């Protein structure tokens, strides 16, 4: 029971917090006009009300959930074994992305991306080393040419000496 209502309780607490915070919005009121907190507060009411309703329904009524219209057209699928989950992989993936976000201003896009690609494939359980490193090099170079030289997307250069990697792409002559 506690587990099933926990997300809604958190949602309700966030709604209360946001409602209070929206009261602190600083502005000069104009007579006869609604303030900037009104619209967000309507959304907060909807969120908090829905959380409260769902919590009450789960605790008191325990009937079937009211679902969207499409649910009735669902054909009952064959029962399949639930897929095993690996929280370690998930955490590994999130940590890896966070490391990328921290490192990319220093390593630059080229080196950061190359290392991220290889590391993510290892985290994802792929173990063909040749393919991992080969594809990481190929995709990094392809992204460098496509985004730095063709599309002119501004991407982090990083600090020296890593920034030279970006500069190399700008030495490629434009033929188009």
């Amino acid at each position: 029971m506690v587990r099933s209502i926990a997300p809604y309780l958190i949602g309700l607490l966030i709604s209360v917090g946001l409602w209070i915070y929206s009261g602190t919005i600083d502005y000069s009121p104009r007579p006869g006009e609604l303030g900037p907190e009104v619209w967000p507060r309507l959304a907060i009411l909807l969120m908090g009300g829905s959380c409260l309703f769902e919590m009450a329904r789960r605790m008191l009524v325990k009937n079937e959930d009211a679902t969207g219209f499409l649910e009735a057209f669902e054909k009952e699928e064959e029962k399949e074994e639930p897929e095993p989950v690996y929280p370690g992989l998930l955490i590994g993936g999130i940590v890896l992305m966070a490391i990328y976000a921290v490192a990319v201003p220093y390593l630059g896009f080229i080196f950061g991306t190359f290392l991220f690609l290889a590391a993510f494939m290892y985290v994802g359980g792929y173990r063909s080393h040749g393919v991992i490193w080969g594809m990481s090099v190929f995709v990094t170079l392809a992204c460098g040419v496509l985004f730095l030289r063709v599309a002119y997307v501004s991407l982090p250069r990083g600090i020296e000496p890593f920034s030279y990697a970006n500069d190399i792409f700008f030495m490629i002559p434009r033929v188009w």
Partner: protein
Amino acid sequence: MDILTQLATGFVHCLTPINMIMLVVGISLGLLIGVLPGLTLVMGVALALPFTYKMDVTASIVLLTAMYVSGTYGGAFTAILFRIPGEPIDVPMLWDGYTMGRNGKPAKALGWTLVSALGGGLLSAVVMVALTEPLAKFALRFSSPEYFVIVMFGLLSVVAIGKGSLANAFISMAVGILISTVGTDPVYGAYRFTFGSPILADGIEFLVVMVGAYGVGEVLTRLETGFSTKPIEKVSNARTELPTWEEFKEVKGMFFRSSVIGDLIGLLPGAGATIASFVSYGIEAKFGRRAKDMGTGIAEGIIAPQAAATASVGGALVHLLALGIPGSGATAVILGAFMLHGIQPGPQVLVSSAGMVYTIFASLFLGLAIMCIIGYFAIRPLVKILDFPEAVVSAYVLILCFIGALSIRNNVTDLWLIIAFGVIGYGFERMKFPLAPLVLGVILGPIAEDSFMNTMISFSNDWTVFFTRPISGTIVAFTAIVIALPFIQHALARRKGIAAEAK
């Protein structure tokens, strides 16, 4: 006649090299996205969005629309050949498409899919051309109260028509609207929910939310299962065999019916290709001439979902272009592409940018033809892409998401935001909170707020105008009906259950 002249001009514009390149690239990418199980249609369109920043607006919409159309078709290949639905749209394809393949006719099943996608798509393109301009002309009568209620109709339809818990969908929508309020308020210039952070004063880009929730979130969901897509069997006879005219004549009635159902569902704001596919299959299974044989590998079970899914695209584009209301995640992304270029779709767009709109229309006709040619001849290389391990594909998807974030303003904060929205997207998926209302809330929230505040200022805070003005009152009534539908359905199902128990 004027419409036909404009459409002809649209064809001429569409045949320019850049638009044709975008069309072919969009069709090919859409097919690839459909084939790859880790990539969904909306995710694919969202991933392409950042790269349209520097493109001409027409070319970028042609690219995204082409991806949207062909994405409804590509997933059928893997559903029929390997029992892997590339998209949720393709789940009904498993019931008859895969079974027909198992009965020794995979080529024929693929042929029916191709014909259904082409037929459904062409019908929807015709409906789109015929309806958009009249609807846009009608919408010129709209004032701020009508805009507010039509936006709310779009948002609430997504909540009511979709799958899963209604409460969760409402919460998801509210979160989306709240995200859209972060930043500087447009009326007073006051900071809202910035928590003292200067970067949040500019607001949160909808692109970050979309790419994060759909792209990063989906990869995290797949990563948690250890990228467990089953290895595919080798299929040596992956080819397409078109149905004969005699075979087609037998199903032409239900073919037309399924296409019309798809088109009508597409016209509803809130209902996209997945809903069209399921509803059309469900109707055929309940009321069709061969209802009892559905699920045994018959053509009707392939035509119903595929024709409806592709037909829904044209319908969905009608209200996107005429009213500026996206009905699904994919059309929300296409709306985002318009907004990135400073264009707000709606009735005015047909007055100010008719050339662009008719080029988009023409691209749908040409795109369907190109999709069928590529689908017919390139099926083997397309399914070959499944040989790529999911971990490898997912790593590239993440890099595309990161480039999308960095391309906004080359600021690492956007990278952090995209990761945060990825984690939120994963959490929503895990706890069965739908993502479409969240994304639509982010996109439509500012439009709804703008029209709400304008109404309140113009009508002296009189909220009854939403009910008393004829057009807005009618839309409010429709909204109430749509919201009531799931509850009525639920009550009927309960009564039916009680009656069955009593027996």
